[in-house]
């Protein structure tokens, strides 16, 4: 059974239709990438999958592990194993990273009817994940994302992903604002988390990230629809030709 099945998905933000019939199937263990020009609907797709309520699904269907994802609240989707690494992680002043992480892990465990993770179990896993992302332990007693650099915020997202062990991870423009060293660290972290039990959707504008995280499939989203799909070689082609072809194609498709 596929992990995720998106069928003819239409979605709007503040009354504007952004997604205009997206179809996509992701199987367990697969890494898919969504590329596309600005405003094509990449982030909207990510937000809809994470069940953000300000994004309205007007028609279509999303099955996640055979269940209707569109009936789930964001926290339910999270507890069912959907994780999104945010493009702009928010700050939570006064709440330490470590406390926040444990609360998140325990919220998920509670949902699944599992025992809470105590500090003793938490610490070793936590230290391991910190090492993976090359992060200083001191950062963990600081407030969530407060005063973090752009790179630290993005690494912190992947750290959370490592701790929460999702079945389906959405990386929303994780490469934006990262220098090459930070990008490498983040990509290494993500690659370490690839497994046959975990699928990923990597959303990016640039091909650069895909040199480090090599996807199984690439889809090009243009004007709210997937215009092309292919293997990892598609990234190289896009790097050379840009999105111009796609945009002119859509323009041609518009009624005169």
């Amino acid at each position: 059974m596929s992990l995720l099945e998106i069928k003819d998905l239409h979605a709007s933000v503040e009354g504007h239709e952004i997604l205009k019939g997206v179809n996509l199937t992701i199987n367990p263990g697969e890494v898919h990438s969504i590329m596309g020009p600005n405003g094509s609907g990449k982030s909207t797709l990510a937000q809809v999958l994470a069940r953000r309520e300000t994004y309205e699904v007007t028609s279509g269907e999303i099955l996640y592990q055979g269940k209707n994802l569109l009936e789930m609240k964001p926290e339910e989707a999270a507890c069912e194993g959907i994780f999104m690494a945010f493009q702009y992680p928010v700050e939570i002043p006064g709440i330490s990273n470590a406390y926040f992480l444990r609360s998140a892990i325990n919220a998920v465990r509670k949902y699944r009817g599992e025992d809470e993770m105590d500090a003793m179990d938490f610490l070793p896993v936590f230290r391991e994940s910190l090492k993976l992302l090359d992060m200083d332990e001191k950062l963990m007693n600081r407030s969530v994302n407060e005063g973090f650099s752009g790179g630290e915020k993005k690494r912190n997202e992947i750290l959370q992903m490592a701790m929460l062990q999702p079945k389906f991870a959405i990386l929303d423009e994780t490469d934006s604002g990262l220098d090459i060293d930070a990008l490498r660290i983040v990509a290494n972290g993500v690659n370490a988390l690839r497994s046959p039990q975990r699928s990923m959707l990597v959303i990016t504008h640039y091909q650069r990230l895909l040199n480090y995280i090599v996807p199984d499939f690439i889809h090009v989203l243009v004007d709210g629809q997937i215009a092309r799909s292919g293997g990892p070689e598609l990234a190289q082609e896009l790097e050379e030709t840009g999105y111009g072809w796609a945009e002119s194609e859509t323009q041609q498709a518009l009624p005169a």
Partner: protein
Amino acid sequence: MSSQVDTTIRGLTEQDYKWGFITTIDEDRAPKGLNEEIIRLISARKGEPEFMLEWRLRALRHWFTLEREKGEPKWANVTYNPIDYQDITYYSAPKQKPVIESLDSIDPEILRTYEKLGIPLDEQKRLAGVAVDAVFDSVSVATTFKAKLAEMGVIFCSFSEAVKNHPDLVKKYLGTVVPYTDNFFAALNAAVFTDGSFVYVPKGVRCPLELSTYFRINAAETGQFERTLIVADEGSYVSYLEGCTAPIRDQNQLHAAVVELVALDNAQIKYSTVQNWYPGDKEGRGGIYNFVTKRGKCAGVNSKISWTQVETGSAITWKYPGCILQGDNSVGEFYSVALTNNRQQADTGTKMIHIGKNTRSTIVSKGISAGYGQNTYRGLVKIMKGATGARNFTQCDSLLIGDRCGAHTFPYIDVRNSSARMEHEASTSRIGENQLFYLRQRGLTTEDAVSMIVNGFCKTVFRELPMEFAVEAQKLLGVSLEGSVG
């Protein structure tokens, strides 16, 4: 914020008050109204010495003058219907055996009430290190650990007992920080107060227990007027916690307390409040009017007074715990969390009056507004001419939940000595849909997400609370915000 989030906020804010119940016990109550006869009756019932009666009567006369000339203070940013002071019962005491040696002799009804409130009145408290002087309506019904404290010379008793057993101390300090002429409600309190707590910590003694009082208004339409006096003699230290919950009533109830603190040379007083009076219903019916005058005087050199308050209850809060920094090098602190939900209104803050040299004050105020709540910070920092080298740091933060509430800030600064150093920081923020979504995407429910954001916002204040109460305060905040995205 999206309409869905608003709906959730509404759902969360509209939770019922969890501590609304009425205890049925026989009461001894005075007729309604305020006049010299009532004052004489209160004083007689309490078996007070002449000086107390005289003081009460002077206060009453002053109050009548104020009422005639100006009425209640009108400057606060709150609105409420006029109070009929002649329609209030000023004295009501639960009828019970006069002497309490052990808990067995206390009305089981009262004990059950405390149980519901989660006040531990049994021996377990001893292990918890908390001495409780429980005020049930106006009369103190139980005082524990007196013996242990007495060994160290610490006096911790009801105000009534202090008047009887330690009249000299009461006479020496009563009204020295908050004179009955201070304001309308202070005058009213001085005239009619029925009980409260008294603490005296002798020279060089570090009080080994957190002293704690739980107040509870019970009798219908009974205004409660406590008066607390804490004196820390030279080189002593005491930490005091006041916590309150009150049951549901339809009528508004007036609560006009006075708290006076005196710290002599090198003494320290830490006063913490968790206030959770009945806030009224969702439409703003009922609820306590909490008009309180609290002030501490750092009378001696190197003395320190620290106020920490967590205010989540009451329909209206009017409260400015302040410090008079008279002794050189004395320190005043004010840490406050004030939360208004539904139709609650709070106008609260502090006054720091710098008189001595090198006096320092710190103000950290966190206001949270949800529902239709209105939250006002009002603070005065005054540096007098002689206060060379005075310093103040003020931080005022407001957090808005939803789009129907309000936050207001009125910081007054009055500097008369050019060597003063003043810092003022202020911020207003709103729990954003993006913050909530972030936390929910990590698996937290909206309620837990709000609670986490609010607790983070209040952290610098909670840190100042005694350990065992910090947890309670966090829970209380969660409960008060349930259904408010808070």
